[in-house]
């Protein structure tokens, strides 16, 4: 049973990593679809917490995402399996491409497919953001909705470094906890 889970984890991360073009957030959204929506191994809030950990640690988000998800699902063996699954595809592809770089670079068909895939990647991210923000809006917490809006505006339009956004959210979270504790007793 446990071995089956590890094999499934390995195959899933291998598959996601092999087809994930365009940076860390893409693989994170694909992981959400796979491990939250399809396999139900992680719940949605937990996934967002794990993404926050992956995002605020040094290193590639795709690798960090694989580490948190693998660790959550099956501990240290899960972590090792999902790291391997994540780095094997780029490892093999880059090794091969470094040999055939000239041919690959000048091929118009390759370029067109990659171009079209960009629109597909955009659609995947939109779909995940839609589902998650819908759930958040349903909670009717004006504070959480405001944080989402403000964080989006400052990162998207003002290029504010995400590290600052995370630090400020941590500070707000601390203040909120004390505030709630205070109102419980009063």
């Amino acid at each position, binding site marked *: 049973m446990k071995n089956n889970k590890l094999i499934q984890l390995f195959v899933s991360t291998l598959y996601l*990593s*092999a*087809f*994930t*073009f365009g*940076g860390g*957030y*893409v693989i994170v*959204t*694909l992981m959400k679809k796979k491990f939250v929506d399809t396999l139900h191994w992680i719940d949605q809030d937990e996934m*967002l917490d794990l*993404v*926050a*950990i*992956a*995002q*605020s*640690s*040094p*290193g*590639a988000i*795709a*690798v*960090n995402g694989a*580490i*948190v998800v693998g*660790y*959550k699902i099956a501990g*240290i063996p899960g972590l090792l399996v999902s790291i391997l699954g994540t*780095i094997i595809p780029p*490892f093999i592809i*880059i*090794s091969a491409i*470094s040999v055939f770089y000239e041919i690959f*670079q000048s091929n118009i*068909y390759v370029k067109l*497919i*990659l*171009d*079209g895939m*960009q*629109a597909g990647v955009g659609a*995947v*991210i*939109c*779909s*995940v953001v839609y589902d*998650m*923000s819908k759930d958040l809006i349903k909670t009717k917490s004006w504070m*959480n*909705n405001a*944080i989402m809006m403000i*964080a*989006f505006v400052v990162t*998207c339009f003002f290029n504010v470094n*995400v*590290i600052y956004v995370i630090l400020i*959210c941590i500070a707000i*979270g*601390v203040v909120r906890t004390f505030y709630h504790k205070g109102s419980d007793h009063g």
Partner: protein
Amino acid sequence: MILLELFLSFLQVGLFSFGGGYAALPLIQNQVVTLHPWLSLSEFTDLVTISQMTPGPIAINSATFVGQKIAGIWGAIFATIGCILPSCIIVSLLAYFYLKYRKLSMLQGILETLRPAVIAMIATAGVSILVSAFFGENTVHTLSSMRIDMMIIFAIGMILLQYKKMDPIYVMILCGMMKLIEYLIL
């Protein structure tokens, strides 16, 4: 010892690159072009291009590419391990503490505040991908420079994801194929 040098160089890349993706670029450049004579500047530019066209995080791709070029397969392996080792240690420690202490009200407060911000950051990544998909290489974003075909491909992708619940990997590949077919027909 070249393997040790590769390992230590990419260990620094892994340890100090926060924020993922292109945040790692200047660090990689510093290690492989400036501090060590491993790549010329034009080879480094090629490496960035390859990374954009292939799956996988740029740091892992660079480690594989540079390691392979300098010391063959073992070079690639040592550089890649160096690159992911800091993540493995830091992220798994954070995941451990998260899973152990998440019931604490303080951590609950912080995580509840972080979740909406994480959704916002994913949305921001989606916007930048869509802008580049819809406008191509144009730096001036006017209505007339919008690529209608890409918007249609995006819309089809959204429908397949939201209403048909199709596997996101298939959606991405299908979007790539649509662009290719469009070119072959028109």
